[in-house]
């Protein structure tokens, strides 16, 4: 299996200082299904010691995480115009 980090190195990101993903981590605390961890195609979500950790920098901006989250704990919006992912060859 190729690590996801290696794949993401092929993608161009212009990373904004402010995050476009927010997580209500209170709601994650007793979540046992954690769909976001599995569905995110960039592997941005990780549950460590009952605490949801996430990063926004390598977000591919598909929106799958907030659709999958049954608790609606993910607040997801587009990054600022011109920022975020820029696909070149897809």
């Amino acid at each position: 299996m190729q690590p996801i980090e290696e794949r993401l190195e092929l993608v161009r990101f212009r990373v904004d200082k402010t995050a476009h993903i927010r997580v209500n981590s209170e709601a994650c605390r007793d979540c046992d299904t954690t769909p976001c961890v599995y569905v995110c195609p960039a592997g941005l979500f990780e549950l460590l010691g009952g605490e949801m950790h996430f990063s926004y920098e390598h977000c591919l901006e598909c929106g799958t995480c907030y659709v999958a989250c049954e608790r609606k704990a993910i607040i997801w919006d587009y990054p600022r115009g011109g920022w975020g992912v820029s696909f070149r060859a897809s």
Partner: protein
Amino acid sequence: MTTNQQFDTIVVGAGPAGSSAALAMARAGLRVALVERGEYAGAKNVSGAALYAPGLLAELLPNYWEEAPVERYLTRRVLSFLGQKSALSIDFRTDHFTQPPYNGFTTLRPKFDRWLADKALQAGASLITSTVVDDLLYQGEQVIGVRCRREQGELYAPIVIAADGANAFLAKKAGLQHEFKAEEMTLGVKEVLRLDARVIEERFNLTDDEGMATEYIGFATANVKGGGFLYTNRDTLSIGVVTQIASLAQQRVKAYELLDQFKQHPSVAPLVRDAVPIEYSAHMIPEGGWAMLPQLSRGGLLVVGDAAGFVFAAGLFLEGMNFAIASGLAAATTAQEAHAAGNFSPASMARYRRRLAKSFVLQDLKRYRRAPAFINNERLQNVYPELFCQAAENVFRSDGTPRRKLGRTIYQTMHNKVSLRSMLRDGWQAARALFF
């Protein structure tokens, strides 16, 4: 309000739907703003990406394929059932798809979408990139513009066309679309792999600019609901898996791990051998079809393309760009008529849906409305592909023992795993979904 904030129509999103609409309206003399959140049109856009019914766009851009960044015209279509170690395919190839306007092209969206947006720009539309539209502006119930995420970001027009893609934020904010359920949406992940054009032609039996599109069902996505695809571009391959989001979460599998497995399948691995990944991408796809169709308009607002859920996912058909273009053009015509009559009321905007109802856009979605549920049938996804392969294996196996007749061999293979009752029921469902 200054005149540089006032337009006849504002189009949100410069994908195929938005740019087609903007191009058509600019040609008709309307003042059009085409607002795109990417640093260039196509920067956020991903699909397979096969453009079917390419003649649609030729009405506005005759012979565009001579200059447009299209990759290869499709002459070979394959549907492949994957077992764990085997594959059974229907492989179709025709010389009748080799002449303009062709039957379909493979494209790479950042290039193709950028080119199409530039056509709208050349026709006189104002292309405003790097700009997110956060919300619609209203006067009473009537949509009168958009709010962009920037200082003094209000733009005004009597018609707004929401071409903002699969997440459909504007349609949701306008109360036209519901919050999506994980069963309605699929996630596509994809790699573009560099491979010499000559190698592609030899490997896939293609001549010159001919191309191939293969859809896979079965083990392509292990036990997750979905399928795989492999398309030939000029000197790259597009390979990916498309998975139902609910199923992915249920099975606790990552889509990119499925993609890795898919690339290693014995019938796929030789096709991508020595091909070097140059980009990885992902996108959400509204594959719910007819059942998740939103309201398509309200006063001053039309919804087009992915934002309206115009994706035709019916197993052997996997189309979206043509639906996007056709809906964009229908919206453009509706906007022109509305401007001519000076009427932007809900009734005037509703002419858009009636126009679509006469075209393949709504007719195909309606006619094949049972297909999305059928394709997600557990047995079709996870049992039959393997069984079809086993049946073929039992038919072709040559081991020096007496051969039974085909019917008995096939029936016994199938019946081992699925009852006759289930087979008949699934056959009936397939017939209803796809055949009549």
